[in-house]
């Protein structure tokens, strides 16, 4: 029993990282209609930038978490403002490949700046250690992550549903032209949404620094695939679906790692195949 609880807790904390990446991905897709391959790279950049702030500027964890993702937002701004903005109207393969080009560029830049090897981040002084749960120790930091995920979900919900800006974002996402003719500066809004989505992914990366133990240039590619699977399972463009999907994937892969270590990824794919056969539009996707 206690081992099951621990596996579920580990799965939830792993799922929260996927949620942070998938939320930005979903938000950007929902509003801009662009599927951003480079979103995993923003996660990776967030981790590396936070790491640098922690290690080389000697700052604390919170400063790293604040400054690192902000630096990545600048990269997100450049990507949207100078490149993506010009391809909204062209065929889909080109949009996807444009973001794929940024995956290549960012992965390579990380190798140039931080080196190709793995970096091990410093251990945390506070939030470190572990607390006993049902007689076994569980890391405090993972509990913190399990709290952060729903907090971000709440923040997104309030921003989108309860504020004036959220209403404008929703209006532009459902009808671009109408919103524009009512005086919404749609291009600027799109840039803003993209940068915010970038921040969400980078925040996930910054939070992952103490969690993953090792930073590698390939860390963005693993999580973007998981985020895609989450988007398929939850329904593309649905934030609720992304949240539920991320938790389900997190828990399932935790069980996989615990009980079938050779096939941990495989369980996830079986789940995806099953959902596709049963509900092709995803759990919370609109029927098309």
């Amino acid at each position, binding site marked *: 029993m206690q081992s099951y609880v621990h596996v579920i807790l580990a799965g939830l904390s792993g799922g929260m990282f996927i949620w942070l990446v998938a939320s930005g991905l979903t938000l950007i*897709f929902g509003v801009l209609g662009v599927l951003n391959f480079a979103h995993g790279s923003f996660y990776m950049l967030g981790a590396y930038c936070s790491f640098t702030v922690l290690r080389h500027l000697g700052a604390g964890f919170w400063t790293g978490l604040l400054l690192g993702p902000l630096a990545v937002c600048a990269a997100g701004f450049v990507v949207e403002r100078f490149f993506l903005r010009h391809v909204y109207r062209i065929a*889909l*393969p080109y949009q996807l*490949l*444009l973001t794929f080009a940024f995956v290549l560029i960012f992965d390579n830049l990380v190798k140039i700046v931080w080196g190709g090897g793995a970096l091990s981040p410093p251990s945390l002084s506070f939030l470190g250690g572990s607390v006993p749960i049902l007689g076994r120790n569980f890391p405090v930091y993972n509990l913190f992550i399990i709290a952060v995920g729903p907090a971000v979900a709440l923040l997104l919900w309030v921003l989108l549903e309860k504020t004036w800006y959220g209403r404008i974002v929703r209006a532009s996402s459902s009808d671009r032209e109408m919103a524009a003719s009512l005086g919404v500066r749609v291009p600027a809004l799109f840039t803003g949404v993209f940068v915010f989505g970038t921040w969400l992914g980078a925040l996930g990366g910054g939070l992952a620094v103490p969690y993953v133990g090792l930073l590698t240039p390939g860390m963005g590619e693993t999580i973007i695939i998981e985020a895609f699977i989450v988007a398929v399972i939850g329904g593309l463009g649905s934030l609720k679906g992304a949240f539920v999907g991320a938790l389900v994937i997190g828990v399932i892969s935790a069980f996989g790692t615990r009980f079938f270590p050779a096939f941990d*990824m495989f369980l996830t794919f079986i789940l995806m195949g099953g959902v596709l*056969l049963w509900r092709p539009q995803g759990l919370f996707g609109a029927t098309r």
Partner: protein
Amino acid sequence: MKAETRNACAAAAVLLALCAVPFLVGKFTIYLAIRIMLLGIFAVGYNLLLGQTGLLSFGHGAFYAAGAYGLGFFGLHVSGNPLLGVAAGVAVAVLLAVLVGYLCVRHTEIYFAMLTLAFGMMVFSLIWNAREITGGDDGLIGIMRSPVSFFGLFQIPIGTDRQFYYLVLAFFALSVWAAHRIRQSPFGLALAGIRENARRSEFAGVPVRRYRLAVFALSGAFAGLAGSLETLLESNARPFMAHWTHSAEPVLVSLLGGLSSLAGPLVGSAIFVAMREIIQRFTENWMLGFGIVLLVIIMGFRGGVMGTLSGLFRKPSAREEG
């Protein structure tokens, strides 16, 4: 049919030139030429899906790997005959493509791209994790290049790269011819119709989903052929053949050369292999260089090399747009 005759003459000239290549250049260039033809087989089949049908798959590395591992297992456990091995590799690739395609073709556009990507990575993680069977990250090693024989009638050695070149060339010519025939056939024209307007094709009586599945399986066969030949070339099969960065190669190559012609992916393959070779010679950061080239193509030259070239000779309005 003037253009037809001209194209046939050009194809014959290129084929003759390719036959002469091993007598003119050194060992390394022969190796590069083989790599170009392998990527060409992969891409020309892939472009039936992307250019002809308008479906963007990010998972064709899986079928490439299926061909590679299919030939590998066949060569290690059943028979070393390369022709039978290639047939086995292609058969495995087609089987896998039908299976994956069945789940994917009910979707289009972004969903299709994401699904193929996810299933491709599933194959990658299976190969990577099933160490006892596939060798995990070491890959499948020790696959021999035994002589080509046909029911014991004759034996042609393919041990050296120069000899192997001609086997690859034969398959390459066959693939390009097959892709050409498919593009010109009623089936190929129906695929173009699906690309332009799927709903209208449906109303015209074209079984859209079944045709999409058929072309998906066909492009999987080309990928499997290329994969099994690469296994013979390198004498090993590696899990990274199924990785999504490898699945992106035929996409890049097709765009680089131009989606709308048969020659586009072939020209793109030559440019891609040559460019990677040159960039790698100067810097180890070839991904950065390639990313920048890709950005330039997408922002400025969406017709690819062939589209841009033919645009130069035609009126500006003839230039195609995405």
